[in-house]
């Protein structure tokens, strides 16, 4: 249990900067997920907290102590690696107990603690096996056990679930969440999988190209993405984004020439600006093509998700996703109409990608950027 402060932290390899000044305050006991595409610097940031990567500039403090100059072992963090990094020449029990052995815990106590960790992770039958003789999920649990046994102040996870199959991944997600509730250690979890981020996080940090794009609860990040990048990255399907211009009458004109109505005050505020208009698939409605005010499109294909369906439509040559409700029957090639509620529209700057306006319905913390 320890708060972590990251103050203007930068990282560069030689002259190539990979992390450009990150500021974060992580509260004690919080579960933070850093989400971003590969190469965005999220793992580098995590490894700087762990002490595996030197901090080029700025400061990281764990529990009030600046750790820039401390060795990994002095920082009180435990880490779960993507490929588990189990010691192949040691048994499961030796793997889990290695940290205790290094710190000189007597053998009897060590064994007792290894057994209790193994019990919590249902690893007891495998304690004498080598990692080679374990399945992926079991290896994953050994890696967790190795991190747990030290009762660390901070847990770091570097994409620990990405090598597991879909079913196991969901089970392990629940297990990690349960573990966090029980141990209460501050956790930082790095992933490129937004479902993981959504289900695990107290707060999500979305990173792109070495910068933090947005910090917020999963709901905030989903409903009020603060930049064009976040809007296009979070959510499945991602938000529909159309680039265009707000005309003098206050309507959005996208590049193919059709108008989409904006609410009057937005239209006035951004008249003449080049903007990107964003609509979530579930905020758009499917109507018959003849409905007045509907945008005409063609159904391209229908994504069957079991509980719901998404129509991927061709909208003047642009892809546009609409969530389907009820029993509408559609086949590829059908003419459809799309209704967009002016209140559900997000606007982003076409030049910088910064958020200009978010739906008015929910109180938003990320309108201004």
């Amino acid at each position, binding site marked *: 249990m320890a708060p972590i402060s990251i103050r203007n932290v930068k990282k560069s390899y030689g002259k190539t900067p990979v992390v450009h000044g990150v500021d974060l305050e992580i509260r004690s006991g919080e579960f933070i997920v850093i989400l971003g595409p590969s190469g965005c610097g999220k793992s580098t940031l995590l490894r700087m907290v762990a002490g595996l990567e030197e901090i080029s500039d700025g400061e990281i403090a764990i529990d009030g102590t600046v750790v820039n100059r401390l060795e990994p*072992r002095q920082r009180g963090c435990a880490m779960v690696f993507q490929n588990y990094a189990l010691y192949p020449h040691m048994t499961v029990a030796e793997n889990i107990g290695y940290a205790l052995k*290094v710190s000189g815990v007597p053998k009897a106590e060590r064994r007792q603690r290894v057994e209790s960790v193994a019990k919590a992770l249902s690893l007891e039958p495998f304690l004498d096996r080598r990692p080679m003789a374990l399945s992926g999920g079991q290896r994953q649990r050994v890696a967790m056990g190795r991190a747990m046994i030290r009762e660390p102040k901070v847990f770091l996870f570097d994409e620990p679930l990405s090598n597991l199959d879909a079913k196991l991944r969901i089970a392990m997600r629940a297990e990690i969440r349960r573990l966090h509730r029980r141990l209460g250690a501050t956790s930082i979890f790095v992933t490129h999988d937004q479902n993981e981020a959504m289900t695990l996080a107290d707060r999500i940090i979305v990173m792109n190209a070495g910068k933090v794009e947005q910090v917020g609860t999963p709901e905030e990040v989903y409903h009020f993405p603060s930049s064009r990048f976040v809007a296009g990255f979070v959510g499945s399907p991602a938000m529909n984004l159309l680039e265009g211009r707000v005309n003098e009458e206050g309507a959005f004109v996208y590049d193919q020439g059709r108008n989409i109505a904006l609410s009057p005050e937005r239209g006035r505020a951004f008249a003449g600006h080049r903007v990107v208009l964003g609509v979530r698939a579930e905020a758009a409605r499917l109507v018959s093509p003849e409905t007045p005010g509907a945008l005409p499109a063609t159904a391209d294909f229908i994504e069957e998700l079991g509980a719901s369906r998404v129509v991927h439509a061709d909208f003047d040559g642009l892809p546009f996703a609409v969530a389907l409700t009820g029993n509408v029957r559609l086949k590829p090639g059908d003419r459809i109409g799309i209704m967009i509620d002016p209140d559900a529209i997000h606007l982003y700057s076409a030049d910088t990608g910064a958020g200009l306006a978010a739906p008015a319905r929910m109180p938003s913390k990320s309108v201004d950027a």
Partner: protein
Amino acid sequence: MEKRVTFSSTTVGLLFALPMLLLIFVFFYWPSAQAVYWAFTLEQPWGGGNAWVGFDNFRQLLSDPVYWGAISRSLVFALSSTAIAMGMALILALLTDREMRGHKIYRSVFIWPYAIAAPALGLAFRFILAPEAGLLSIINQVWPGLWNPALDGKDAMIAVIVAFSWKYIGYNFIFFLSALQGIPRSLTEAAAMDGSGPLRRIFDMQLPLLTPTLFFLLVINITESFQDSFGIVDVMTQGGPARATELMVYKIYFDGFKGLDYSGAAAQSIILMLLVILLTIFQFRFIERRVHYK
């Protein structure tokens, strides 16, 4: 699709293999068979007939304390040169692995000694270790007569061991370094997160994970030290002083070509061959099975 070329008739295949088979036969099987034959006969020094004597040659050798001396010297030589060559190589590789700047240069530079022919190497070390003018002559300046491989058998043995080890340090280094680099970085990092410092990581992670390489090099080094030592001994000491550096392989040459005792030399080479085979089998049977983790 079958990528191999297959021949419909066995004859064509055999014809293709024939040049190589011929080489192997002429330079390997024939001399070996000849040696085995000679070992059981008494050959005349100038040729012209021999007599079958059974195991007499072996009986005579094994009851000769001089021969037993050569065996024990060979063992001392093999064990110490292997220990030095592998130990030094391991230390160098561990240091290089930690700070990898310029590792490509080390890699190629350290393999060069292995490419030097043993006699050239022996000659170089003869100069380096010469008591009157070499690097170690400084010692003699302070304590006159302390270092003299031409007179002191122990010094001579040290000299050949050093020369031989020097040749194999580079060879071993290459293997150790590539094995060390084959250890996943995340393992080292995980150990660091577990609180293990650099020195502790060497003993807990790197060395255990290096054991397959350690074993392989142990076999190679010991085998080679029995066979590859001839050139160095011949150039540096000729087995002297007073047989102090007369190793098994050198004694074969000396008895056979200087003493013209072909039969005795042939018997010795059979014994050396058996010894190397036995050592290798022993190492594979008792060590190898403990070193793999898969």
